[in-house]
């Protein structure tokens, strides 16, 4: 069993619980390799996927994890703009809770929204991304993929490349990786690295070639095109020159490092197509591990198999 009732974020999350989630995820990974990929572990449990922000892969990954565990699944796509029009967050949350559900998986554009949700509902809450704050299940699946590849996380040297400031993936990865004993270096444009980030125990290096030389694996974050033109990134050409993971750049390094990307990728922007499709990349393993990780989290938080009523 895990020490926290919810999975809100990985800041101060216990190391042994991360290990439990990872170990359980590997056993579910075996389930996913079977011809029949479904287990009755969460039969009778109802999980709502409450998405206030568009998401395809995270939502599908969660939904698949729920279905593989035989839970009942409801998807609720609320646009945050409708909340701005007056429908309150509290009402939405309490309406869903009133339908007797066991857990809420929530994606929301505002940092802290899942913490806010705990004030209004009793259900178990899993954070599927809260704005520019955390995305703990992504970090879990990234760590699972590293463990699968290297057999360990402790002592690994991990580079996180790109827009650290506007991404939630980086922060959860930092919390998780530091807790598990990895070293983390961030690399990206200085104005896209949050201030005071080194207080979290990471180093910052704006020289991508030095980071590639140092790292065992790099996690490449998506450069959102909407960041262009507002003074954050001068141009795609400039970004690629300084931070793009290109075939040529990788070829300069003797060591073959592992390439990760949480998706969705902008091929030709932060990562070359040929790099994404190379043997170095474990991007599709991450996707599969995402399902296994989410199965593990749902299973552990929802208490596994329930007794049949007598």
């Amino acid at each position, binding site marked *: 069993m895990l020490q926290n009732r919810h999975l809100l974020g990985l800041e101060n999350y216990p190391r042994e619980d991360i290990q439990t989630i990872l170990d359980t995820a590997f056993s579910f990974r075996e389930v996913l390799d079977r011809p029949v990929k479904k287990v009755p572990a969460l039969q009778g449990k109802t999980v709502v996927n409450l998405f206030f922000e568009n998401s395809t892969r995270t939502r599908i990954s969660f939904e698949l994890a729920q279905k593989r565990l035989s839970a009942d699944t409801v998807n609720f796509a609320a646009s945050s703009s409708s909340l*701005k029009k007056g429908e309150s967050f509290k009402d939405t949350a309490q309406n869903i809770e009133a339908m007797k559900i066991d857990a809420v998986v929530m994606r*929301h554009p*505002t*940092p802290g929204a899942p913490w806010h949700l705990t004030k209004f509902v009793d259900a178990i809450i899993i954070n599927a991304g809260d*704005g*520019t704050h*955390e995305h703990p299940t992504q970090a879990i699946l990234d760590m699972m993929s590293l463990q699968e590849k290297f057999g360990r996380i402790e002592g690994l040297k991990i580079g996180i490349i790109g827009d650290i400031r506007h991404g939630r993936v980086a*922060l959860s990865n930092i919390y998780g990786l530091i807790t598990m004993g990895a070293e983390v270096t961030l690399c990206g444009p200085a104005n896209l690295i*949050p201030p005071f*980030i080194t207080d979290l125990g990471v180093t910052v290096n704006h020289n991508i070639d030095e980071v590639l030389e140092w790292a065992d694996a790099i996690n490449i974050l998506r450069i959102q095109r909407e960041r262009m033109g507002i003074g954050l990134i001068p141009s795609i050409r400039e970004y690629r020159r300084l931070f793009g993971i290109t075939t040529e750049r990788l070829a300069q390094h003797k060591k073959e490092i592992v390439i990760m990307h949480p998706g969705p990728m902008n091929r030709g922007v932060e990562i070359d197509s040929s790099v994404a499709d190379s043997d170095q990349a474990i991007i599709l393993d991450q996707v599969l591990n995402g399902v296994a990780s989410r199965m593990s989290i749902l299973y552990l938080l929802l208490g596994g198999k329930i007794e049949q009523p007598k």
Partner: protein
Amino acid sequence: MDIKPLPEKLLLHGGTILDPKAQRSFTGDVLIIDGKIAEIGSVGSNTDSTKIDCSGLIITAGFCDLHVHFREPGREDKETLASGSRAALAGGFTRVCVMPNTSPPIDTPEMVGNIIDKAADLPVHIHPIGAVTQQQKGFELTEMGGLLETGAVAFSDDGLPISNGSVMRMALEYAGMFDVPVINHAEDLTLRNDGLMNEGRVSTQLGLPGNPALSEITMVHRDLELAVLTGSKLHVPHVSTAGAADLIRRLKAKSQNITAEVTPHHLFFNDEALKSFDTNLKVAPPLRSETDRQGLIQAVLDGVFDCIATDHAPHTIEEKEGTFDLAPFGMIGLESCFGAVNRVLVREAGLSLEKLVQLLTVQPRRIMGFDDDLLQVGKKAELTIFDPDLKYTFQVSDIHSKSANSPYVGHQLIGKARITINKGIIAKNH
């Protein structure tokens, strides 16, 4: 809280009388007849007056708050002049200055007159602060002369900074003719950007957009230099950063006309508290780092700040129940003020109680030119009687504002106003 008319003869018996003007305190009685102080000292108990035992309590001048938002007109669902007065009395405040960022804003003599009329019969003295610029848009000056004639006591576009330096200069020059302070909400909006909390380690940990200390420091610096240049009165509100406090310390040496206030919440909380994502802690300027908080406390000890002001800013539960980005900036603060600053400044930082009382009584009154010598025979009774030792957990039941957006709920405070006497009434806290 009970609010009743003052008895014809009231004897406050056996308290510690703390006279912040004369800077002395002594054990004694205060006799009030027909709403005026009739006798101070050893009155004895053999009179036919109603007697209140004040042993263990401190009798002093009524507290004065230069910075409150009572939301009338326009947002009477959050607060009214009447409900705000109740909150003030509960906190021991007999006199407040209301900020003009109402809807519409207080930017004409007629609007000022409206506030004066509505407040006339309320149990708290309410002084309107007039807008600096028309509709608080930051460009055209208001009819300051007319605003003052109808009862305004100072000028501010509070809530919104006067971003244009030339406008701020003109405001100081023009208000300088009348020798009243201009109060500028000092935040450089281009540096604040979309900041929702203090920029620092905590904002990075929480993924919330940060508002850097520099957004306050640069604008406070501009305002201070403009005050030196024009020689006019500048009052710096709700200072949140140690950097701005240092600038005030330095520039005060160059002008007698610079004053500054600090809020209880910037002294009580730091940005670590935001880890709860409690929207009641969302305030402008934001709660800063522990280093800033300590810097502000040191500045109080050094006499840099002239007064404590609450920036009492009511918002509805519905608004504060929203997510962090949508919730409005502001928290209420009248009821919790004394217990918070007494705990932080006197109990934890070693400021004398006498100094704290000065920051709540004579010093704010001097900034606005109000009578600051209240403990005199013949004066209308405007008194606060507080218990400096009471330790209690601040609760929703301590709140008398129409709104309840207080982050102090659940926190231990030390000290509480027990009785407030003002304008012919006596208010008793339970």
